[in-house]
Every structure is written in C-alpha cells, then in structure tokens.
C-alpha cells in the first residue's frame, strides 16, 4: 500500500516559558506509516500527545528531530507548508472556533477561496461538499442557529471542499450528544469509503475507534499499541495500564469469560456480542 503520511522517529517538545524551563518531550520517538485510503483512530489518555501528533501532520508544529512526510513532502521545509495544507485538512474539537463566515455556504467556500480556485469551480465544490455531509438544505443558514453535530458537519464540508487527500480530525465528536456523534462519525466513515479519503481521527470513544481499520494507542508520547481494533481491544490489561477502557460490548464479553462462561471475547460491537452470547448459551 501507498504511504500517505509518515512519521520517522519523530520527537517534539513545546517551548517553555523561558530558556531555563525546558519541557519534557511531548512526542517521544514516534514512527508510523499511514496508508492511503485507510481509516485510523488514535486513542490515549488526556495529555498523551494525540493533538500534538495531529498538529505535526500539517506543519502547525515541526518535529524537533526526525521527520514528518506528507505524500513525500517534509513538513520542516517552509516551502512545503502551503502544499501540505492542500493535502491534509484539519477539523478541530470545537466547531464554533473554526467556522469563519456568517452563512454556511460562505464558510465552506472559505478554504477553496484561499486556494485561489475559480468561482464556478468553488460553487461546484461547495455544493458537492454540502451534499456529501448532508447539509445542502442548510446552505443559506446561519451557523449559530445549527446544532453541534450540524456545525461540525459544516466544518467537515469546509475541509472537503478543499479536496484534500487526507483529513485529520481532533476529537470532532467531543462536544456532541450521541445523535450528533453518530451523524459526524457516519459522515466521516462514508467519506472514507466512498471517496477514498484517508482519515486520522482522534477520539475518546472506544465505540468510534472500533469502527476504524486501525487503532493506534498513544501513551506518554509513544505508540503503545497499534493494530486492528480487534487486536487492540482484546488487550484489555494493556489498555487499562494506559488509562483506557474497552468498548462496552467487549468489556461485557470479557467479564462473562472471566466468570467462567465459555464465550468468544474478541467482539467489537453489540451485534457481535449478542451473537457470542447466543452461541455460548446454545452450547
């Protein structure tokens, strides 16, 4: 598979208040390859460096040592910054702080306008992006009158209209209720499947991570676990050690197994869990 974002032994630290206070490394030797068209979830407790890792992808932060390559372009080279930002889009946690315009369609147009794209093409992209996230009917609405989930989908449309190859989402569902969360996650999943957009999504919700192709667990600035959701979530002991839980369904199966029932424990969602319980019951 083609690599789209590569971290090569990356370290990074924030600057302290003054010269005397050198902060510890926030990212401490991360090597990762993200494949084109994949859907990767990043987990980790508060302060484990997830947001920092995300911001390293589009040259908001530059590595102290090592390299971050986006489609082969080194983020440390200033000439690449603009190019890289055309390839990787970022969606942040709080939709209120990333919407720029007072009308939905004007906000979605903001990115393409910055790229200097021709007006007719911008119109086409904006309509397309709004349809893709299911917000076309709201194109003339004022953002502050939308729900959180709708706002976040507008923010995603804003990145989509820039036609970046990858999208990095930093806890896009953290401020949303369950319905809003589902709206956003299914939108992102669909964009990944239908358009082949590479997705790197940071989340605190195990259920969301379970739907990714690959889960990376970060702890103290290092990659702690890395694998398919099934591989990662069956290691509940390791997950607990870095302050994380398993999805509820997995937890239930595990608890049943621990209490002596013969049951499959590598389940990721409710359906699989129900199946496993039924199978165990029949036996």
């Amino acid at each position, binding site marked *: 598979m083609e690599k789209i974002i590569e971290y090569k032994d990356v370290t990074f630290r924030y600057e302290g208040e003054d010269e005397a206070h050198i902060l510890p490394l926030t990212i401490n030797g991360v090597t990762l390859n993200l494949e084109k068209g994949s859907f990767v979830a990043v987990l980790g407790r508060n302060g484990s460096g997830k947001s920092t890792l995300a911001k390293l992808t*589009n040259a*908001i932060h530059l590595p102290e040592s090592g390299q971050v390559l986006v489609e082969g372009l080194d983020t440390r080279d200033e000439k690449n910054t*603009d190019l890289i*930002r*055309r390839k990787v*889009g*970022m969606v*942040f946690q*709080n939709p*209120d*702080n*990333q*919407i*720029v*315009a*007072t*009308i939905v*369609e*004007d906000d979605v*147009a*903001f*990115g*393409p*306008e*910055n*790229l*200097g*794209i*021709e*007006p007719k093409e*911008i*119109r086409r992209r*904006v309509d397309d992006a709004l349809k893709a996230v299911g917000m076309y009917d709201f194109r*003339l609405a*004022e*953002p*502050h*009158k939308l729900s959180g989930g709708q706002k976040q989908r507008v923010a995603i449309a*804003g*990145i989509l209209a*820039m036609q970046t190859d990858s999208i990095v989402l930093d806890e896009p569902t953290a401020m949303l209720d369950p319905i809003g969360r589902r709206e956003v996650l299914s939108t992102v999943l669909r964009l990944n499947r239908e358009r082949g957009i590479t997705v790197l999504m940071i989340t605190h919700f195990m259920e969301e991570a379970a739907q990714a192709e690959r889960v990376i667990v970060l702890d103290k600035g290092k990659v702690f676990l890395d694998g398919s959701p099934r591989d990662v979530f069956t290691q509940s002991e390791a997950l607990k050690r870095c302050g994380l839980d398993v999805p509820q369904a997995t937890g239930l199966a595990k608890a049943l197994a621990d209490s002596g029932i013969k049951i499959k424990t590598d389940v990721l969602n409710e359906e699989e869990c129900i199946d496993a319980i039924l199978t165990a019951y029949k036996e």
Partner: protein
Amino acid sequence: MVRDLTIGQYYPGDSLLHKTDPRVKIVLTLVFIFVIFFCKNFFSLGLMIAALLVGVFLSRVPLKMILKSMKAITFIIIITALLNLFYTTGGNVLVKYKFITITDTGVYTAIFVAVRILALIVGSTLLTYTTTPTMLTDAIEQLLKPLKVFHVPVHTLAMMMTLALRFIPTLIEEIDKIMNAQKARGADLESGGLLQRAKALVPILIPLFVSSFRRAYELAFAMECRCYTGGEGRTRMKQMKLKGLDSILIVGCAVLLGGVIALNLFFKTYNLG
C-alpha cells in the same frame, strides 16, 4: 432566545434586489440617505417614499419583516416627533396652554421628520435584508480598495468585520453561560447600586476575555489550516459583476435625485425648515 438573533438581518431570497451587485446597493443606499436629508417638502419626500415602496416590492421581503425593523425604533421616532412638535416656532398657533405652544408648522415638521426617519430605516434595512453579511463586507472591501494606495489594510479590515459579525452570537451565548455559572456560585448581579453592579460585572468580563482569546487562538489555527494567508491570491465564490440590472438601478436613482431637486425648487413655498 439568543438563537433567534439574526445578524445582519439577511432575508434569503432570489429577488431583483437580492441579485443586484452589493457594491451598487451600498452606494445607492448611501445616496438614498443623502437624498432623504435633501428633501425639503412633502412632495419631494413623497417621491422618495414612492421609490422606497417600489424597492420594498422589488425585494420581495414580506411587509411583516419591514414592519419589524420599524418597531425597534418607534420610541426614537416618537421622541423626535414630540420634540419637533413642541419646539418648532412659526406658523399659526393651534394650541396654547401655559408654556406649551403647538403651531401648524410644528405638526407638519413632526410628521415630516418622523416619515423621514422611517424612510431612512426602511431604506437601510432593505440593504441588509437583501445582502448577506459576507457580501456586504466583500463589497465594502472592493469599494475601499483604492485606499490600498495609502497602505490601508483593506482586506484585513473586511476580514475583521466578517469575523466580528460571525462571533457576536457566539459571544452573547457565552456571556449568558458565564452569567449563569457565576449566579450558580452565588454571584448577585441584580441588586445594589450602580457601582456595586458594575463591580459584579468583573467576574463576568474576565472569563469572557480569557475565553475570547482562546477562541481567537483556535480560530487563527483553523484559518491557517484552511490555507488562509491574507488577501493575496484569494478568489471569491460569489463574484461581483455590474450587470444591466445595476445600470438601470443607477440611472433610476439619478432620475430620482433630479426629481427631488425639481420638486424642492418647484414647491419652494411648502419647504419646511
């Protein structure tokens, strides 16, 4: 309640006025305001009102919305009308009671002034009803472009205006939240003298400042991530081009201006003030 707040009062639509170039609309609104002040008697003012009604008709904005915009300033209109009613001298005395004197010129002037203010309000809301805030700021940016010669950062100013408009409702919501949070902690915001109440505002303003800065910081990041590097090399989805429609409007307004001057001169004897 906060969610009902409409910024810039845009009324989505597809009318002739919606389609008019926003630059033309801004300039014509300014001209309109100027001409309204230039009207000296009921004949010329009447002509402008007629033109305004045509404008309202062309905008397809429901009358209810227009009336709503008037409601907000009823108080101001009444006060101004009353002041004119009592303080205008000259003409035939209609009422004389102790220190109050009302003359017929006073009555005319009061009505004249009230109608004038109403026309001003309706004229300018017509602009904001038919133009999105983004279009407005874009148009202002275009109109002010010549100032770039004097190193005025026109694009930056327009961008600041857009962002300010965008964040007004967000910040109002935030103030609401902070006030509730402080009340829950036992803050007393309603009682006490002026000084005490002003002091009670401090614990509201400080969190508001802090959070605004955090917002600004995040927003700046988000804008950079969307490749914003200032006005250079930007294009616009909504292009502004002068069309036939715009020229017709401009000519129409020029004719109106001529009409007002003619009526002012012709009915000179009816001129007020």
